[in-house]
């Protein structure tokens, strides 16, 4: 492969004809988000890796049904999330999300040790509250904010409509506030 990277639609078109080099490029472009999405849904690193790889394999085998010109990522994430969900259903376990170890230390940009400590404490509370939410609410917030997925991608991963993403987000934020012991108000 020389020159500029091919646009995604071209890579998909080539992969459809059996060009695995083109598909490798697609995998490399999306493997990080696929793996993280799978991790959110399965709650286990080994399961997430399996789910992401199976998802990519299944996506490849189903490219014939993929509508040319559509964005690849939402379609891929719907497959990967489904794989991950199935693994979690069968395994019946999930590790709660945790803060990175480095977060115990004060942040670089913190104005003072006290402020850094308060900020770290707030993050801990927030994540614990998020972990306590039911799956629907936890996943919609995690997809949108932790993974920074678009609404379309979140809808695909969750297998719901975009409109449902919006309403579920609003309810999830309310619920999160309640978990945090804060009053729910508009704003």
């Amino acid at each position: 492969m020389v020159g500029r990277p091919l646009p995604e639609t071209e890579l998909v078109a080539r992969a459809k004809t059996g060009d695995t080099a083109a598909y490798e490029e697609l995998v490399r472009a999306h493997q990080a988000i696929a793996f993280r999405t799978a991790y959110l849904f399965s709650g286990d690193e080994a399961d997430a890796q399996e789910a992401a790889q199976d998802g990519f394999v299944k996506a490849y085998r189903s490219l014939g049904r993929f509508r040319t010109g559509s964005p690849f990522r939402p379609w891929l994430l719907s497959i990967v999330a489904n794989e991950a969900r199935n693994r979690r259903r069968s395994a019946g376990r999930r590790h709660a999300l945790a803060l990175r170890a480095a977060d115990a230390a004060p942040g670089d940009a913190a104005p003072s040790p006290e402020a850094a400590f308060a900020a770290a404490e707030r993050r801990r509370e927030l994540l614990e509250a998020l972990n306590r939410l039911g799956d629907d609410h936890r996943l919609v917030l995690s997809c949108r904010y932790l993974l920074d997925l678009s609404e379309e991608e979140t809808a695909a991963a969750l297998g719901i409509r975009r409109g449902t993403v919006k309403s579920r987000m609003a309810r999830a934020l309310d619920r999160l506030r309640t978990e945090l012991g804060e009053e729910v108000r508009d704003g």
Partner: protein
Amino acid sequence: MAELRRELHELAAHVALPAERELWLGIEARLARRPARQWRRTAAIVLVAAATAIGIAFAVPPARSAILRFLGLDGVSIVRVDRLPPVHQSPVVVGQRTTLAEAERTLGFRPLQPAAARPDALYLDPQSEAVLLVYGRPLRLRLEETRIGIFQKFVSAANAVDRVRVGDDPGIWIVGPHVFDDVFGQPRLAGNTLLWQHGDVTLRLDGRVTKAQALQIARSVQ
């Protein structure tokens, strides 16, 4: 609420999500394999029906859904849900017209056939490595076969799901309209369906047949 949203965005940088992994090598290895021999686990295929929207809510709270498991059909995932997912208008068949010889060449196994009748048409879906045998005009019966499979079925409380034997082979019989999902976002409506495993081939029979008829046809498949 804007403040909370901002905090959640910032939280992302502090959450211990696992680092990116090299996935391609494992994927490449799987793509290079003859899936027929490696993926015994799963089942089926594209069943297709001219379907109208029957469901409303796709999202099913996991607590109220349950995966039904069947010995010998490990890869067949049947999920019992409160409400069936929505389905779309689907073509009656998926794939391209083919012949027995071409299907055998492509799939690496000779499609099994019921003894009583020759198919009116065969279709090959190279992507899912499945062959579809169609019987009757108008369509009465479909038989699909694959050695790999990627699919899920959604059944509601209204669908009976029975474990059956087709000769010595394990199988399941699903009564009534339910939803077949090939995992790629195009759920389809399916009618009475018999699904069974013969060696490393998973077969699925659906159409206007009773359980006794379906079992009789299935037992004659060779």
